[in-house]
């Protein structure tokens, strides 16, 4: 995530144009992360909306603008994990992805295949893979975020990756 410190500063000061630009810059990352967690298009859209509302409400409270990426990442993670709690989301891949698969080059097929495989993981497995491999959280940070022991993080991440490997080799 590249950050534009001036833009964040302006958005903090209440500049609407700067905030609009911030949304345009980060909406892709936010949506993709939400989709990776939730694996449901409309849920990911709702989550993205909620994330930007939270950012809008509290960006002025951010003391260190350099911490914006970490802060945004935390907001995304919190919103998505909250939405995942107690929810059994639709695991069927969305129509958009299927339509892309028919019209895209071969090397994209593998990415779509992987995305579908991620959707076949359990919520617990998927969240840990996304947190580590995509979000870049450390084992210890994940343990704190999910309130689970460090040993569980290690074993769950390994199980999830092995499961993903099995799904892809089938």
């Amino acid at each position, binding site marked *: 995530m590249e950050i534009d410190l001036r833009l964040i500063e302006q958005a903090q000061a209440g500049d609407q144009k700067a905030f609009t630009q911030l949304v345009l810059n980060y909406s892709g990352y936010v949506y993709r992360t939400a*989709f*990776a967690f939730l694996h449901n298009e409309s849920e990911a859209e709702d989550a993205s*909306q909620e994330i930007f*509302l939270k950012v809008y409400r509290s960006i002025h409270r951010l003391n260190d603008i350099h911490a914006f990426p970490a802060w945004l990442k935390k907001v995304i993670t919190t919103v998505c994990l909250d939405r995942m709690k107690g929810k059994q989301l639709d695991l069927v891949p969305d129509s*958009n992805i299927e339509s892309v698969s028919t019209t895209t080059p071969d090397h994209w097929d593998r990415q779509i295949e992987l995305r579908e495989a991620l959707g076949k993981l359990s919520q617990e497995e998927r969240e840990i893979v*996304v947190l580590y*491999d995509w979000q870049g959280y450390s084992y210890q940070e994940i343990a704190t975020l999910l309130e689970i022991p460090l040993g569980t993080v290690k074993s769950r991440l*390994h199980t999830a*990756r092995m499961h993903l490997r099995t799904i892809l080799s089938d």
Partner: protein
Amino acid sequence: MECLQCMERLSEYLDGELDANKYRDIEVHLQCCPDCRKVMDDLAALSKEINLSIASIPIPTNLTVRIFSAIEKEQHNTAKDIWLTSILLAVFASPVLLIFSRTFSSVFHLVYATGSAFWRSLMTLVTLFSPWVTVTMGIISLFLMVMGLYIIKTLLTKFEVNEVVL
């Protein structure tokens, strides 16, 4: 080191989460075990592919429009909240301001004087009764109040409210 032990630690090995000794043990095992090496290569490739796969998720065309409309609604609600708070403050502050009005101060004084006269009359009446009568009356009225509250509570709990699900 056995294959099973190596397999269990492969993710930690790849993520650099092992101490030097365990890391070395796994390296030694991987050099002489093609099966474990194959799994390790697969897992290493998988981590990179996961990132590429998530980075290529298509974004809905109306996403930013939805986000902007939600923010606009929020701005509208905030403006409404500010108005409501101002009105409420004005409503609560108005009695204080009324004290500074001469006419209303006279009305307040009249209410206070009437209340005070009524209170003094009541006290005079009470002193006419014996202490036992006043204490008994107090206990009876307290009992009636508690009973009344209990009856109201019983009546209210009997009402069933159907939740409306949209």
